[in-house]
């Protein structure tokens, strides 16, 4: 009987011919990392184990991006702890503010993600990297501390769910809309601890960065990983050849799936998720006209150059609504620089947006644009849980960069066609 791509990558990293869902195996990890928020506990646990050296200073990264530039003295101390460890261990991949970005997006730029790799690290949205045909599994700090020390971890082989997205996406419909619909269909824990595999014409036609958005939000369905098999466009995006360490695994035609869902791409509407869960997704018409105080375009789900080009196209020559704060949050320094070179930053500032330093920005509600009581935000970042971006009575809606752009101009949730 055949294997899924997820099963194959696990088998390849555990020295087994094949593995079955439910099995518990030990796997070698190709790259791991922690951040300024999950790092301090990982470092503490590493030391409590009595470990003194990481297993490989080129394969352990530390990426400050959550509470930096230092939010306050306490956050500065967390950042110090992480910085000191990086220096002490001689880590190749530590990037200071000014050269930094969100870990998973940085990892793509740094070439530490390749098709067939197994990556386990402490960011729940690590699932994003499955867009490269890699197995990317989010874990917590203690698990990552163990990987820091040994370069391996234990895994329960997940069941695989197959999402077949046929046909072509409609105008104004993006990978973001697809995922919000999928999470609506299966629920917030709908793929809990499973592998979400995305196939079909619409997926094959998606540019790699759109596949990243797809896999990013697998985390919101509780998945262990999201994955799209690598192809030529994947290699082109990474700037590598087929012999540069990539392993182009694909699921066997007779691989077994615990669940299969077929979706017709042209049926997917422009979608917005209302408070307080990604699964609370609706065609935009249901929530259009809702007044917003803040709009965010950026972060790990939609913070790449493609997203900013779309935003700039809509904003050019226009102004952000008078009562709205629009925050642009590049995922990495390289994205910021590219946007600058393309004249996009000028467009954003002239429109009245605030361009934030690369990182997570306001997504987690710790700094860089926290909401006030009762305030409403429309964001391209992935979460709208209760109290996510501000006090418990603040309200967060999720949407694509196109929806965010239109909404920033009008000041209310707006269909992109209205501002075309």
């Amino acid at each position, binding site marked *: 009987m055949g294997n899924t791509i997820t099963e194959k990558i696990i088998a390849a990293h555990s020295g087994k011919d094949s593995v079955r869902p439910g099995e518990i*195996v030990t796997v070698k990890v190709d790259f791991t990392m922690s951040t300024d928020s999950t790092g301090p506990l990982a470092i503490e646990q590493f030391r409590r184990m009595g470990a003194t050296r990481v297993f490989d200073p080129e394969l352990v990264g530390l990426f400050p991006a959550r509470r930096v530039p230092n939010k306050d003295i306490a956050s500065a101390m967390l950042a110090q702890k992480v910085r000191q460890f990086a220096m002490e261990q001689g880590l190749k991949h530590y990037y200071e503010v000014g050269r930094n970005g969100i870990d998973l997006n940085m990892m793509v730029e740094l070439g530490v993600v390749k098709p067939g790799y197994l990556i386990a690290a402490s960011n729940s949205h690590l699932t994003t990297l499955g867009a490269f045909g890699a197995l990317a599994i989010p874990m917590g700090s203690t698990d990552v501390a163990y990987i820091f020390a040994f370069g391996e971890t234990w895994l329960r082989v997940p069941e695989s769910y197959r999402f077949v997205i046929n046909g072509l996406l409609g105008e104004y419909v993006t990978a973001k809309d697809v995922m919000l619909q999928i999470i609506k269909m299966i629920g917030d824990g709908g793929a809990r601890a499973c592998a979400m595999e995305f196939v079909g014409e619409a997926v094959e036609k998606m540019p790699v960065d759109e596949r990243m958005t797809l896999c990013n939000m697998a985390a919101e369905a509780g998945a262990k990983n999201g994955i799209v098999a690598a192809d030529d466009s994947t290699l082109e995006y990474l700037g590598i050849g087929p012999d540069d360490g990539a392993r182009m695994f694909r699921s066997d035609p007779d691989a077994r799936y615990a669940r299969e869902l077929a979706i017709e791409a042209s049926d997917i509407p422009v979608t917005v998720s209302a408070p307080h869960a990604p699964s609370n997704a609706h065609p935009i018409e249901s929530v259009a006209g809702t007044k917003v105080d803040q709009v965010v375009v950026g972060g790990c789900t939609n913070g790449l150059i493609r997203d900013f080009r779309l935003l700039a196209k809509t904003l050019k020559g226009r102004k952000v609504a008078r009562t709205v704060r629009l925050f642009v949050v590049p995922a990495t320094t390289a994205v910021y620089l590219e946007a600058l070179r393309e004249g996009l930053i000028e467009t954003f500032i002239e429109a009245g947006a605030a361009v934030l330093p690369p990182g997570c920005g306001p997504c987690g509600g710790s700094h860089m644009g926290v909401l006030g009581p009762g305030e409403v935000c429309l964001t391209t970042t992935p979460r709208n849980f209760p109290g996510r971006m501000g006090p418990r009575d603040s309200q967060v809606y999720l949407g694509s960069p196109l929806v965010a752009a239109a909404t920033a101009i009008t000041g209310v949730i707006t269909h992109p066609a209205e501002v075309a």
Partner: protein
Amino acid sequence: MAIEGNVFKFGSNITTDQIIPARYLQNQDPKHLAEHCLEDADPTFAQRVRPGDVVVGEDNFGHGSSRETAAVAVKAAGVACIVARSFGRIFFRNCLNQGLPCLVCPDAVENARDGAKIKVDLSTGEIEIAGSVYRAEPMPEFMRQLLESGGLVEYGRRRLEAEKGGGGLPKV
């Protein structure tokens, strides 16, 4: 090991954001985290919980962000164990690593009212509520061994000791 306390009942999809909001995460001291435990699900929880109490959730308890500080917060608040229909996978592993038992028992969840008295026997997985006894799903063997042998940090510590001595611990 016997647990005896009161039930604090929650719904489905309680997120780790609700368990410990990011606005408190500049200070990762367990005592500080305990003070804000579950604040965005029930702002009164941290003041009312007592050591030995049991948190009961419906589906997918501990969904979302990988923050292990959520497990730290619940443990530091004195919660003896969590019983739910299912758990977010990262949260489940984090609780394992923090020595906070997570039991899957839909029948117990169904019959657990907020404020009810509850007894849990971790060695048998038996949960007693209002005179009825339910049995939690047994944890996979490897995870149970990990928990019983002192958790992942202890496992790692022993492995490093063994490797220094030239040997190696048997692996999974």
